[in-house]
């Protein structure tokens, strides 16, 4: 999704101002999205294992976490859902703003990543992030976090978590395509429900 060129630059910090001006002057790359559909998630952990393998992380350093919500009692029934959570690649990432070395960066197509050759492992980003997403990889003493599998995407591949997911709870594509895909799947589901009745 391209940035709105008519948007007023945010004046809250000097750095934000620079970023906003840069956005106005430079055309942005088309952005991709990872769509996490909690209604399809079964909490199996495949995405977590995929990311651990992809990023060669040690046990316990989870760049993708699965939130288990429930079970909660609703009248006489129990309900439970799972939600895989990872970096949101914020529009105004606090981790980028606070990183003292500039290791944490945001690319033109919106990906927030940490450059391991610059990172000093101070974990300021972990504190700054409202979701606590960046974690320290104790093997190398640097920050690990979701980078949208930018190296895979750059080679034309899907991110590892989306490829592995057994139920299609994670899909990948342009912002329009993932939303359209979800809309069509929901429409088809409703249609089939009506047909079966």
């Amino acid at each position: 999704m391209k940035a709105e060129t008519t948007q007023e630059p945010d004046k809250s910090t000097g750095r934000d101002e620079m970023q906003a001006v840069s956005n106005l002057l430079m055309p942005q790359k088309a952005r991709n999205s990872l769509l996490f559909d909690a209604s399809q998630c079964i909490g199996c952990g495949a995405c977590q294992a995929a990311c651990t393998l992809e990023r060669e992380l040690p046990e316990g350093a989870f760049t993708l976490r699965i939130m288990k919500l429930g079970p909660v009692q609703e009248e006489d029934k129990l309900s439970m859902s799972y939600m895989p959570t990872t970096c949101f690649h914020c529009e105004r990432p606090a981790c980028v703003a606070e990183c003292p070395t500039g290791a944490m960066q945001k690319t033109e197509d919106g990906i927030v990543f940490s450059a391991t050759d610059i990172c000093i492992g101070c974990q300021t980003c972990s504190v700054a992030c409202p979701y606590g997403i960046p974690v320290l990889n104790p093997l190398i003493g640097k920050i690990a976090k979701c980078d949208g599998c930018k190296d895979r995407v750059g080679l034309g591949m899907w991110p590892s978590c989306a490829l592995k997911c057994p139920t299609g709870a994670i899909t990948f594509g342009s912002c329009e395509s993932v939303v359209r895909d979800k809309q069509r799947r929901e429409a088809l589901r409703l249609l089939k429900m009506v047909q079966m009745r």
Partner: protein
Amino acid sequence: MIDYLALKRFPGSRKPYDSAVHSICQECSTGCGLVAYLQQGRIVDIQGEEEHPVSRGRLCARGIAFWSLLTSNDRLQKVTFRKSQRNEPEEFENWETGLDLLAERLKKSRDLYGPESLLIGCDPDAGLDFYYAALRFCEFWGTPNIFNPLDDPDATVRRSLFKKPCYEWLSNKCFLLVGADPASTHPIAFGWIMEAQKNGAKIVSADNRFTSTMSKADFSLILRPEKENLLGISLMKLLLNDENCNRKFLPEKTLKSFAELALGDLAKSIGVSSNKIEELARLLVTTAPVQIITSKKMAHLSGYGIWEAIADAMGWAGHDGGGWYPLDSGRPVIDLTKDARSSQGSYLAGNFTSYTDIKNLLESAVTNQEPSIRTLICTGNSIEDYFAPLAPLSTKLDTIAYFGVSQNATSKLANLVFPAALWPEKDSLFFTDDRRICWARHLVTPGRNFRSGLDFWTGLADRLGLGEHFPWRDEQGQPDPEAFRNWILAQSPDTSGCNLAPIESQQSTALFGMWPCAGSSLKDPVIPELKQRESLLPVDFLYETPTDLDLYPLYCESPSALARSVVPDFQWMGPGRSDATYNLQLNPEIADALQINMGDTVYLESRYKIVEALAWISRSIPVWMAYSNRPIGEKRVLVYRKGDSRETARFILKDMLTDR
């Protein structure tokens, strides 16, 4: 009409590699296709096989993470021996020394106590070749004492069962999952169930606790443990009144028995209301045909045949989208000892396929003055799982030999330890739930000290004068797994026509055989004929042993003990980290009554054992259950907070659970 095209996937690996191996994952009985990318013989990446019809490029957490065990510090590296548990283990340089010693001990034990003093336990981690070679060894050694927890007690009855593979489930109308939690245990197969749900299928889940599968179900019931087959009996009673039910399936005597059963009594025993069972029956009738998926553990309980009877009587069996689909080992019935020398008939005719049989053997072995079992050869964490009653006897056994992958409670008790090759380290014959015959290519070359089950039993047989009965050798006289594989397939009428050569020569894993087959590697499955039932009703379904209920009021369940070492805090989802070996989930009502809070240390006590555990309060667990992350070896337990009185806890629990 909505025109829908799924988002196009772009698979592959971005890591540098010098070879890519296509194979089948053997972590569960789904059998997904995978591609392992290797650099200098080491796995650098694992991706799914996009062409595989079952997995379509997807993989579950186990199918991705298995590689870490290949180089784990937990992995057993050398053959070791210790005279007793007080001694430090001594490492042997090679397998030959270990096998020499084991053979010597077996001979001594046979001379003193007879060949039936040998007991063998096989779990899936050791591989199919270990199990099949062990069966053969047992026959020629002369012992019926071999147990595999995945064995189905009535496999001969179910051999003609038609099972549609999961990629053909998209147009199913209803799935009845009893005791099965495929969202946790077989996520890839469950993915197909969810696809069918998007097409309008109903998911019905009946289990002992609230599971991930149940969280996606349209209709659910929580059953008392070991009462799953009773649910089937109740449903059959109700479905017999339906116009679609073919009552001729059952003998008159059985029909009369069903009529005499009181639904209220059944419902009370199961732990649900009669209304709920009636509602379920109505749902099944209106969404028929129904595919009934049942779990392995139910096969060992009486009344298991009810599910096949329901599928047959309601006309769901053989119908597109319906029938009975038991989760089992997927193995055909194979007679591996046709050439046995015994003229009295096969020793294995008396072998143990049910938990009840093995439990009786183990309990008598423990309680007798002179234990009947003296030598144990096992794989997996058997002493903590299916051989748990043997634990008190473990110091009195002459020899415990462990063939496995990583350190666990059983390997620590063993006199002799033999490090096993993992499935990615050997070419394997592999059967899946849906009757596929797969050949799985090895991914990496094993280290010198890691050997296969066939190597183990052939080596032992050679030292005990039984080598002639293990004729599958290469030119150097070493065990030949390919010859063994082909011989196995030739022994069963269900698999004798299967030729693995075309499968082995293909790079892709998308080609496989289905059994039963004859003459070609792919054949239409046989639709089972209608058959009568002798007896379906379990005799003692309404009664439990009173003593156990009084002393140990809670029912303890846990996931099957993994052969690998269990990392405790992986399963801990409470606050902070858990260093406790046991984590115990309790129902909030029970926790309240016993004044137990999240994270408290509690005692988990069974007839044979008492352990400390960290308490985790969860609504997933019904009031009558305590769910432990690792087995304690007994089904009935008492729980109380550390520092509190166990008698008070027992009194409170008994009071709460009476009539519930």
